[in-house]
């Protein structure tokens, strides 16, 4: 319990992901229980809104047009290959995180996925593991923190990275710094890894173009829409039970 308080203290201070990782590594896994987050906690709204304008500008000027080009000129099989390659390289991280979450089944599944796709799937370009019934189970250190009982913390929006929360930002930082793949891979190969990740993101931006455009450009308050979508979808992803008194279950007949 004491460690949990310590973690929350640390989380107040965004600049210390390494310290969090150290505390985490000291075996906190057994002590917390996941708690459902509710409502919207956004004390940094003013800063976040400024970051959001930067992101919308970035999308309009760079990401969206680039993704259009990527989506148009790159043939579908290549796009799929790039996305598979990127997601295969995230598997070692998924294996570690599933293990840290005490989810042995997912950890083993992700290990086999990585082994099968790296060999039979020609270095991860194809996804034969899916045909073996080993569908992808993505995870990250943000989820690990959630499983350990760390609360979501305030909502944050980062330039270039988009919406997050304090917990997920720490998770992203740890995943980035401790990614087994980038530690193991030598120089030119690690660039391919990064390039495939960029390609995969562009592919997603293009594929979900209508949805993303409607949120970013057609809504009256795209910041508020982005925040709501991110928080609700992330909580769903983490398997949090929807709260009956929060916004999740609106009963228009009792208002």
């Amino acid at each position, binding site marked *: 319990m004491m460690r949990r308080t310590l973690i929350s203290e640390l989380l107040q201070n965004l600049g210390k992901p390494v310290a969090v990782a150290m505390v985490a590594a000291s075996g906190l896994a057994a002590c917390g229980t996941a708690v459902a987050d509710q409502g919207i906690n956004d004390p940094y709204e003013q800063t976040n809104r400024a970051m959001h304008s930067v992101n919308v500008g970035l999308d309009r000027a760079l990401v969206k047009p680039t993704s259009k080009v990527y989506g148009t000129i790159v043939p579908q099989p290549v796009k799929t290959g790039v996305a598979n390659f990127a997601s295969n390289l995230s598997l070692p991280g998924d294996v570690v995180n599933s293990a840290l979450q005490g989810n042995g089944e997912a950890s083993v599944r992700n290990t086999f996925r990585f082994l099968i796709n790296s060999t039979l799937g020609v270095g991860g370009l194809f996804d034969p593991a899916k045909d073996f019934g080993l569908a992808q189970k993505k995870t990250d250190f943000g989820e690990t923190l959630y499983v350990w009982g760390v609360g979501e913390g305030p909502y944050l929006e980062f330039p270039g990275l988009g919406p997050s929360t304090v917990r997920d930002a720490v998770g992203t930082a740890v995943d980035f710094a401790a990614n087994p793949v980038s530690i193991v891979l030598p120089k030119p190969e690690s660039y391919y890894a990064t390039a495939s990740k960029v390609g995969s993101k562009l592919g997603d931006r293009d594929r979900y173009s209508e949805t993303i455009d409607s949120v970013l450009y057609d809504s009256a308050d795209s910041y508020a829409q982005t925040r*709501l979508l991110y928080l609700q979808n992330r909580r769903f992803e983490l398997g949090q039970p929807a709260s009956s008194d929060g916004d999740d279950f609106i009963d228009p007949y009792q208002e």
Partner: protein
Amino acid sequence: MIQITRRAFGATLAAGAAVAVLPRPAQALDLASAKALIDRAIAEVNTVINSGKAEQAMYKDFEAIFAKYADVNAIARSALGPASRSASAAEMKAFTRAYQGYIGRKYGRRFREFIGGRIEVVDAKPLKSYFEVISVAHLQGEAPFDLRWHVSNKSGKDLFFNIIIEGVNMLASEREEVGAMLKQNKGDINALIAALNAA
């Protein structure tokens, strides 16, 4: 809190099935009728998508489906939020009509994403004072995703009043959006109605 254990859920289902064979008032909402409502709505949406009509005509059809299967009054009131309490009956009527058309166009514009896809109702369970119908959307080139419908008979008919897409709550999102539009129009409901009609 609302998470029901598998066993309790099974028991509820069994109870629901038992109730279904007993004579009961025609208006009673049960699992089967909630599920059937969503099945019919989905079938109608698919018919429109596959009709090959012009887009503008499709929006009208989507609006009609929305009006038929959703509790538009309750959704519109909820989307408008606190302002719905100070609005006059005439204003509410005009707002609801404008909002219905706006929804038909807003969601109708996205119909291409559903071409060649299908939505399959897999389950339904009681939730608070209403029912949650659970469906899985299989869209082309995408992993299947979770789509839930909240169905109530408080209006006197079985109608859905909310859709939850992978955890994202349509009513919550609409409240945020309509609230922002009302603010843009300085709280003037008539200006909001005009903005909805133009959107």
